[in-house]
Every structure is written in C-alpha cells, then in structure tokens.
C-alpha cells in the first residue's frame, strides 16, 4: 500500500519536473523575436565593449536586434561561408576582397580603423621602443630571440602579424616564437605570464585588465593601421539569410549616425575606433 503511494508520488514529481522544464523552454522560444540578425565579428570589437556602446543606438533607431558571435576573423569568414551569419564585420581587407571575389559577398565597405600596438615586458630586452619602424622593431625581437607570443589562430591580427614578419625579412621560427592558437585575450594573458612580446589591437589592449609587467612599447607606424570592413553577403549563395535587415545594418554603419556612434565610443577617455566610411 505505502509502496504504491510512494510510486505515485514519485511519478507526480517527475511529471511536475518535466512540465516545469517544458515551461521554461517555452519562455526561451517566446522571447526570440523575428527582427534580429546574426553578426559574425571579431573578438576585438566585442571584448573592447564597442558593440555594447553602438548596438543599442542601432536597435533604438531601427528596432532590429543584432546578435554578435565574436570569433577570430578566419572563423567569422567560415561561419558566413556556411550561411550561418547574416552579416560580417571583420578586419582583414585582403581576405574580405577575396570573399567578394569568390561570390560570397556582394559588397565590402570600409567602416573604421583602429591600430595595432606592440606590447612587451617593461624592461624591453629587445630594445624596440626606439625602433624607427615596426619592421625594425620586429627584426630586433627576432635578433634578440626574445619570447614572442603569436595568436597563431588565423585571425585578422594573426594575419597582420605574419605580414609584419615578412616586412621585417624574418621567418619567425625557433623556441622564442610561440604560437598559442588562442584569441586576443588569452594570448595577452599568456604573454603577461611569460614576459613575451605580442602584437595586439589597441582596443583589446586598452580594455585588458591583467597586464602584469607588460607595457605598450611601440606604436604609430602606418603599417600598423587596422582597417575594419562590413560585408553585405550574397543573397544568391544563401537565400535564407535576412538580407533586408542585414542591409539596413550595413547602411547604418556607414551612415552619419553610425559613424558618429563609433567615434563616440571611448574607454578610459581614449577613442579606440576611428570611423572612415567613404560614403
């Protein structure tokens, strides 16, 4: 008798738990509106807080929510290529142009620039602080065989770094050159841990909260400019994408209002992204 009652109680409990969970998942579905786009973008824009600053302004103006998937530029291209993102905002101009040439995107536009900076241990063992050019600074690091932490993840920053080694006439290899295969933040954390030199975008560096002994050692060379581009994806390749909404986002970024929002964004009193749309 008691055994049967317990069995019944147990069943009731299970049903309650199940219906509770079902109810919870229902609410998730209900909050997912239709007016949103998936934007594949880079960790530098997300981690610095740029999107937190500008997305509310876009949503207020248009009613469109932007859901950001922040990954390395290489992965962002791959997500867009597979048709999993409605829009793309990345920083690898050559790669972006190739993307258009391959037919995955119909239009590419300059949105903003920030710049890369060379970070390293405060005592600067390779003496790069008074180098003339960034190529010279990189050559000095290789010469001194001072530890250098590379993203090694095919991100926009990684691609820029490899171009700088080429400009310096150095093939980066050997025990001092450490490919981490990580995002910007983890790479900075690791570089801080092993007192290594590292190339970072200024936004990630300024927003980074765990510098330990690292300091900004070299900046300002034109070769360090970092151009961000917005891509309008091809409706022919992927007809299921929300092209209308994505186009409004693309146009807003290039509009006076969008450019203003980018220019207004500051961390610690520093402007980090400089709008430079040509429209």
């Amino acid at each position, binding site marked *: 008798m008691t055994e049967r009652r317990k069995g019944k109680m147990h069943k009731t409990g299970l049903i309650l738990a199940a219906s509770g969970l079902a109810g919870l998942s229902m609410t998730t579905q209900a909050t997912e509106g239709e007016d949103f786009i998936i934007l594949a973008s880079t960790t530098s824009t997300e*981690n610095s807080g740029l999107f937190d600053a500008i997305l509310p302004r876009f949503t207020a103006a248009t009613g469109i929510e932007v859901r950001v998937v922040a990954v390395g530029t290489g992965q962002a291209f791959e997500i867009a290529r597979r048709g999993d993102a409605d829009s793309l905002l990345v920083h690898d101009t050559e790669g972006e142009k190739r993307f258009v040439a391959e037919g995955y995107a119909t239009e590419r536009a300059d949105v903003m620039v920030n710049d890369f900076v060379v970070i390293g241990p405060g005592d600067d063992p390779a003496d790069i602080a008074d180098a003339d050019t960034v190529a010279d600074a990189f050559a000095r690091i290789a010469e001194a065989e001072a530890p250098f932490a590379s993203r090694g993840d095919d991100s926009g920053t990684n691609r820029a770094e490899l171009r700088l080694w080429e400009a310096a006439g150095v093939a980066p290899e050997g025990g001092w050159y450490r490919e981490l295969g990580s995002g910007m933040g983890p790479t900075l954390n690791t570089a801080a841990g092993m007192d290594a030199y590292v190339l970072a975008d200024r936004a990630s560096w300024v927003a980074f909260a765990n510098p330990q002994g690292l300091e900004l050692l070299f900046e300002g060379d034109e070769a360090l400019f970092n151009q961000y581009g917005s891509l309008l994806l091809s409706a022919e390749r992927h007809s299921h994408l929300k092209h209308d909404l994505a186009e409004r986002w693309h146009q807003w970024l290039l509009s006076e209002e969008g450019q203003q929002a980018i220019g207004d964004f500051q961390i610690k009193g520093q402007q980090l992204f400089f709008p430079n749309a040509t429209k």
Partner: protein
Amino acid sequence: MFDDTNAFQTALSLIMGFDPDLLAIVALSLRVSLSAVLIATLIGLPLGAALALWKFPGRGTLIVVLNAFMGLPPVVAGLTVYLLLSRAGPLGELGLLFTPTAMVIAQVILVLPIIAALTRQQIEELHGDYHEQLRSMGLSKRRMMPTLLWDARFGLMTVILAGFGRASAEVGAVMIVGGNIDGVTRVMTTAIVLETSKGDLPLALGLGIVLLGLVALVNAAAYLIGESARRRLG
C-alpha cells in the same frame, strides 16, 4: 595583481547585487543543463537497463563504445552538432544554430553516454544479485526493467548528478553551437571564458564561484530529496 579574497568579494557582490544580467545568465545555464540532463535521463535509463538485461551480438562492443563516449571532448561534440545544424549541414533548414536548443542538443550528446553507461553497470550488478528472485516471480525482462530501475533509484540519482556535473561544467560545446551571444546564448561557463579573455580575472573567478555554488545547490536538493525518501522507507 589580484588575490583570492578579491574574487570572493566579487562573487558575493554578484550574488547580493541581483544583477539582472547575471540572473538571466544563471537561469539560462540551469535551463540548458537541466533540460539536457532530463532528456538524457529519459533516454539513458531505459537504454542502460536494456543493455544490462539483454544479451545480443555486438553487445560488448556497444558497451565499450558507450564507455569511451564518456570521455568525448565537449569541443568535438560541439563541432559535430555545429556541422549538423549549420545551414550548409543536413539539419540546417531548422535554423537552430546559435540558439539555446542547439546547446541542449550538444549537451545531451555529452551527458547521455555517462547516464546510459553508469546505469548499465548499476542495473547489471543489481540484476546479478536478484535475478533468481525476479525470475521466480515469473517476470519477463521487459517487466523487470522498471522494477530494477526503481530499486536502483538512489544509486541512479548519483548517476544523474554526474551527468548534470558534466553538463554544467563544460564550455567547449555550448561555445561553438551557442556562439556566446549576449542575452541569448551566454551561459555561466562561456561568460567565464569571456571575462578571462578580457583579463578581468577576479570577475571570471567570481562567476566561477557563483557557478560552483549553483551546482552545490542542485546537488543539495537532490541529496535532501533522496534522504527524505530513504527515511520514509525506514
């Protein structure tokens, strides 16, 4: 740079502050992991019991495979589900990528082998002890299954909690299939990765302490339910 008290203070102020963003992240974490565990339990318990009771060719291989899948790296589970749900993949039409549903699917794949494999072991032992008795009652294997599962319920509670531990602790799968989208698919573990990458280590560790507390609460609830049931049994 930072010390542990800093992280504990951060954790405390996170909890005391009832930050709505944090509450939403906590709620989503629980929703995703508990849904995954519920689904994996509903499939895993009968599957494990059936594997324990029936003998068929290839059974040994199946058991080894199931045991091996307990060690499936979350990032591999995530990648597999990503390729399935991607628009270019076979289930792309459903449009599930970068949603909480995708995260539940990935976690079911991680949790199911644990629940099924450990259930199989528990039921097999129990069956070894009692099968003469059960047979004398004239029960078929199909009828034995619910009886054995019910008798093993306290042990199975621990099995389910092990599955929940796996679900709530993993980050590799939910990061890939969820995309860590703010307010949509950001859960505790992906938030911890994000804050670590920003170099905000006290906040990251603070979130970790909150997550640990949350898991402890779920375990405590399960323990209390188990204890009170045991006491009523006398």
